[in-house]
């Protein structure tokens, strides 16, 4: 019986099926909002207002011919899409998807999720590196450079609410404002929330941090040589990363109030949508900045800002401990 339950968790909810469906919805929302902000219509014909367009795109890619370049390393080239997709799926299983908890939540799952979310970037780097083409090589180096730029501020920003709640468990951190009755922690962590949003944008490789896949510069970046199913997998991985990343940031920074399985799930969905909307606005409001500018920006502003936030949180904790 337990085995079936676990299977349902992994395959249907909150695993594979739910993540795939909800993340394609998020992509649709992002595209639609982006289009409306540019005074365009966005996807229109597939389903209600084009809501099935992301699904249609991925299905189309799965039906296309799959080409492996002759000079590419076959094993790594084939492995990378699967690896990156698997890692984001696994990360998604630890989200506090209902009742402010998850079925396999444990003390320290924040660190596991943070590390699982770093794997797609490495997979992307290796995918570009082993497909051996000038554009994918440049793209791959940019992915790695960008990883060094955003990863530290991202971890520092995630650390802030963890320190505040005194726990490494996402569910505990998420329910901390509710259980302790101290809702003021949400406005206090605003700097870290901003840093987390921007670094998440960098992790997702969206404007202004989409230098690794800049279409007008390096064609498709690390994915230049990919086609068919493997490109489809990377597309799906990107969507799910959007969902998992924004759900993680939403859970850590936006609080929550229990309320059972259904209400808890609705809360997380709404919070995630809110984060995705913010990310869309950032995407529409900026130009793509250069890779060296990303590194400078990240270490000059984002890292110090998250350190200052950490200091503020530690001071508050200390003051509360004394009082």
């Amino acid at each position, binding site marked *: 019986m337990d085995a079936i339950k676990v299977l349902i968790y992994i395959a249907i909810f909150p695993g594979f099926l739910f993540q795939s469906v909800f993340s394609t919805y998020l992509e649709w929302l992002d595209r639609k909002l982006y289009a409306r*902000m*540019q*005074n*365009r219509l966005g996807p229109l014909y597939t389903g209600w207002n084009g809501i099935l367009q992301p699904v249609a795109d991925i299905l189309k890619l799965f039906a296309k011919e799959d080409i492996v370049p002759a000079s590419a390393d076959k094993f790594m080239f084939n492995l990378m899409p699967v690896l990156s997709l698997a890692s984001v799926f696994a990360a998604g299983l630890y989200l506090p998807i209902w009742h402010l908890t998850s079925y396999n939540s444990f003390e320290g799952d924040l660190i596991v999720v943070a590390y699982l979310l770093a794997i797609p970037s490495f997979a992307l780097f290796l995918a570009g590196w082993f497909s051996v083409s*000038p*554009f994918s*090589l*440049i793209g791959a180096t940019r992915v790695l450079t960008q990883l060094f730029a955003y990863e530290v501020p991202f971890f520092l920003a995630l650390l802030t609410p963890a320190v505040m709640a005194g726990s490494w468990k996402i569910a505990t951190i998420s329910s901390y404002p509710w259980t302790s009755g101290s809702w003021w922690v949400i406005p206090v962590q605003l700097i870290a929330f901003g840093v987390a949003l921007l670094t998440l944008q960098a992790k997702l490789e969206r*404007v*202004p941090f*989409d*230098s690794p896949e*800049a*279409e*007008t*510069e*390096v*064609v498709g970046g690390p994915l230049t040589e990919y086609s068919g199913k493997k490109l489809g997998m990377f597309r799906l991985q990107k969507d799910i990363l959007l969902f998992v990343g924004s759900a993680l940031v939403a859970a850590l920074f936006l609080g929550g109030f229990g309320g059972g399985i259904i209400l808890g799930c609705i809360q997380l969905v709404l919070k995630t949508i809110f984060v995705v909307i913010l990310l869309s606005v950032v995407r*529409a*409001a*900026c*130009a*793509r*900045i*250069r*890779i*060296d*500018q990303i590194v400078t920006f990240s270490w000059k502003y984002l890292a110090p800002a998250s350190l200052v936030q950490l200091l503020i949180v530690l001071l508050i904790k200390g003051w509360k401990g004394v009082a």
Partner: protein
Amino acid sequence: MGEKTIRIPIGPQHPFLKEPAKFDFDISGEEIIGARMRIGYNHRGMEKACEERNYYQCLYLLERICGICSHSHTTCYVQAVEDILKLEVPKRGLYLRTLVCELERLHSHFLWLGVAAHEVGFDTLFMYVWRDREVVMEILEEISGNRVNYAINTIGGVRRDLTEEQRKKILGSLDLLKKRLDYYTHIGTHEPSFLARIQGVGKMSKERAIQMCAVGPFARASGLDVDVRRDDQYAAYGDLDFKVITSDQCDVLGRVIVRVLEIAESLKMIQQLLTKLPEGDIAVKKVPRRVPAGFSISRYEAPRGEDVHYVRSNGTEKPERVKVRAPTMANLEAATESIVGSFIADIPIAIASIDPCFSCTDRTAVVLNDKKKGMRITTWEELRRYGVDWYRKNKGIHF
């Protein structure tokens, strides 16, 4: 990366190139240390085709050299033909011709601003600018009957008159354009991520710009004060009051500033043209079909820079030679050079900053000294000796 350099080919097909052209960049890490360009993928043989057609057929053929500055090429060509024919174009005809010139400059610069924003990944600005460009396109469609190839020029004037209604309509839409232009000027010079990408990119000093014979907004952004509209006045520009915009920025930011301020000048000029529009004929009534022997060179300030047409006639209905020097030809070498020292990420915006139009500019490339095909370079002396030998051998003539 260290000492090792890799060569990345960009083109003939690449997402940032709207038309085929080939660039080779030697890069060390992200920095570019060498650049070469090659054109010739889009040669259409229009100059040769002109020799087979009469003057009117050439007019519509030359209009199709460029999709954006179609009016520039026809104006430049009809000016040359009118010069050979010694035609006096009526004042109203010249004013209407100038009006379309300036409207074309408006839509070309708006288009460029959008493309530049797209090259640096600023798609929102791209969409906004192109949305507002539609206003200009609709005006052009209204007065000429087509959005792109206006076909408003004819030898000796223009083909269509402007009604009072259309005149009011154009004057009415200028306010909207002015308002939007102010907004884009603000965004173009204040949005930090956009500025970060265009400031200090594609440097071209004034001295180098003179040496490389740069023209148009590209040259003016390097502080070079050249503008055919003022220096060699044609059409109705003599009656207009306008400034030549220059900038000392010498980079892509300078080119943005020059183009945006030129849009403002164009709007002013359109207002002047419409308020001062004289009454009278729009074209010369009787234009001879046979053009007497002669030649003429005509210069024109196209949105992208100086456009030059050379027309030679031989007394028949067809021109003997038509030669076109599109502005991109003058700027391309300079733009390629300006990239050296920047980063890979700057390639699209640096090349796009001249507003390249490769099919306007394309030439055929003939490989000389190709031993395999038996081709070699012959000097004048060799050619003369060959001729002397040939006549001695075959005709028995001794020189």
